[in-house]
């Protein structure tokens, strides 16, 4: 049995009348790369913020189970929680300028993580910071360490943020749309870099994205969210080759491809999250809608995947709500 890094069961996140996450489950093991996919409002960001207890104070959180490295995230005292973040689980963001301090040199920021989480001396921290920059593909690290974030290009800034995230030698790296704002050429290099680092270090990787194309080559498993719920989860090969949930199918079909058609258009929009529904949240847009979709489907096992859709129900199953 492999070591569990992150384990979330039946997570609910509410902001006022809005239910951002309703019963999500997510699991990342040591050395495993998991893609968490969803569009705006799917609850993917609320889920990972809750996983690190970084959610805004007005959020109300409940979960049957929410552990990071075996610690109960929701009840952990602040000092222990701070040690867990950065040291056990580090995060990289879409916009490195939100994560990097514009007033401090890149070297100071990476060294800070090293002295705080790894108790290195300032001189050792400096040496280690230079080594980290080299690992993320930044040449001339000695000069680069003395520079400020604005002196880096967008792609280089992402690399510097990755170096800072790796400084705590985390077991789990959470990447929240880390390449969205970048050119495709830079994207491709960063994806390759992160995939390589994950393998070398045996880290767990949680890749949070709206981009089904970009993550195909780097994750082992995919979790698809829609309107705060997990619609489908399964091994990457099965999910792309044989998607089971009509939403997953629609999402894959909507991708324009160089070698194929423009993609099919999924009409409509996500439901109003302030109005709870007792049925399947995707039913209003679903082409395979049936009468029993008025009742929310449970998660059914289908091969190696799990699917929240009545179409995946075993023959004869009439699960009562």
């Amino acid at each position, binding site marked *: 049995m492999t070591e569990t890094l992150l384990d979330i069961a039946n997570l609910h996140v509410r902001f006022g009348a809005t239910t951002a996450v309703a019963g999500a489950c997510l699991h990342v093991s040591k050395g495993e790369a998991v893609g968490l996919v969803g*569009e*705006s409002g799917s609850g993917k960001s609320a889920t990972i913020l809750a996983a690190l207890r970084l959610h805004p104070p007005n959020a109300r959180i409940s979960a049957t189970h929410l552990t990071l490295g075996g610690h109960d995230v929701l009840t952990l005292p602040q000092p222990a929680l701070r040690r867990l973040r950065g040291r056990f689980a580090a995060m990289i963001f879409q916009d490195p300028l939100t994560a990097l301090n514009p007033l401090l040199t890149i070297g100071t920021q990476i060294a800070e993580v090293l002295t705080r989480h790894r108790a290195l001396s300032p001189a050792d921290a400096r040496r280690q910071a230079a080594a980290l920059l080299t690992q993320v593909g930044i040449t001339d690290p000695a000069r680069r360490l003395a520079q400020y974030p604005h002196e880096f*290009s*967008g*792609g*280089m800034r992402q690399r510097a943020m990755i170096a800072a995230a790796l400084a705590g030698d985390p077991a789990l790296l959470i990447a929240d749309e880390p390449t969205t704002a970048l*050119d*495709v*050429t*830079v*994207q*491709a*290099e960063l*994806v*390759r870099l992160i*995939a390589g680092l994950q393998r070398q270090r045996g880290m767990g990787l949680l890749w949070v994205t*709206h*981009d*089904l*194309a*970009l993550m*195909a*080559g*780097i994750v082992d498993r995919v979790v698809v969210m829609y309107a705060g719920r997990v619609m489908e989860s399964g091994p*990457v*090969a099965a999910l*792309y080759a044989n998607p089971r949930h009509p939403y997953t199918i*629609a*999402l*894959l079909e*909507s*991708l*324009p*491809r*160089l070698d194929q*058609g*423009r*993609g*099919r*258009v*999924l*009409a409509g*929009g996500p439901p109003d999250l302030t109005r709870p529904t007792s049925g399947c949240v995707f039913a209003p847009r679903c082409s395979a809608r049936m009468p029993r979709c008025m009742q929310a489907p449970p998660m059914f096992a289908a091969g190696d995947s799990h699917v929240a859709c009545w179409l995946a129900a075993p023959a004869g199953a009439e699960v009562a709500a």
Partner: protein
Amino acid sequence: MAALSEASGVSVRYGGVAALTDVDFAVSAGETVAIIGESGCGKSTLGRTLLLLQPPTSGTVRFRGEDLTALPARALRQRRRFMQMMFQDPYASLNARMTIGETLAEPLVVHGLATWRTARPRVAQMLARVGLDPGVTSRYPHEFSGGQRQRIAIARAVIAGPDLVVADEPLSALDITVQGQILDLLAALQAAQNLTYVFISHDLPVVRHIAGRVAVMLGGRMVEQGPPAEVFATPAHPYTQALLAAVPIPDPALARARMATAAALPAATPAPPNACPFVPRCPAARPICTESMPPLRDIAAHRRAACWLNEVPA
């Protein structure tokens, strides 16, 4: 056929920095032409220059045959009705303090096509055409989703009846399922109003399916042009090849195979002044590529490229 919009020998310099260098680009009425390239390649600058939102440092910019750079300010303002810009970020491009009704009526009022009062029926009609409830005129941009805001921005761009619309990354901020809906809307409006689109994008798969012609830019220069099906199947410039090789493949096995085998593309670095801008990253660079910039020349029917590989035998 005369071009609707045409840039000839256009250069734009900001201080000492060349944003565009000697660019020739033309669009015919009814066409959809995509401009692709990495950030900083000059694609947005070229789009803005076509509308004279950015005056060229040298060269001419024509619209319906008229030299826009020679027009007095007042005459230029009149022409603006027929050439509009659409931006990536509908959060930034819509005035947060104007209602949707005011936002859509403004272009009509500015160009003297209606008064604030008489604009109302046209605003309602336009909202319906872009798939929004005509009853939303008294609401503000923040009350709408990203996709709805992009619909409002599109309605504002086309309400005064332009011929040319320059759309700068109109899909990048949107979810994939919303992108498809907006592409359908842009196509419907083009058919209904006989619009000509210059579509600035970094998304090659989208460009492949919506553009009749694609122009590839690099370092402020035009390096390749042609029909996307042909350019993407047999790219004539190593830079176009590099862009294509970076397009994510939504297939786990193929994506993994490519990641394992593809050579890394070096990061962009400045090239010597007269060199091809791709020289520092080009796997096929030769001495001549550093000595002089290759001209953009016809290489086949409807296709042009600026690369010495197409001209000088190795």
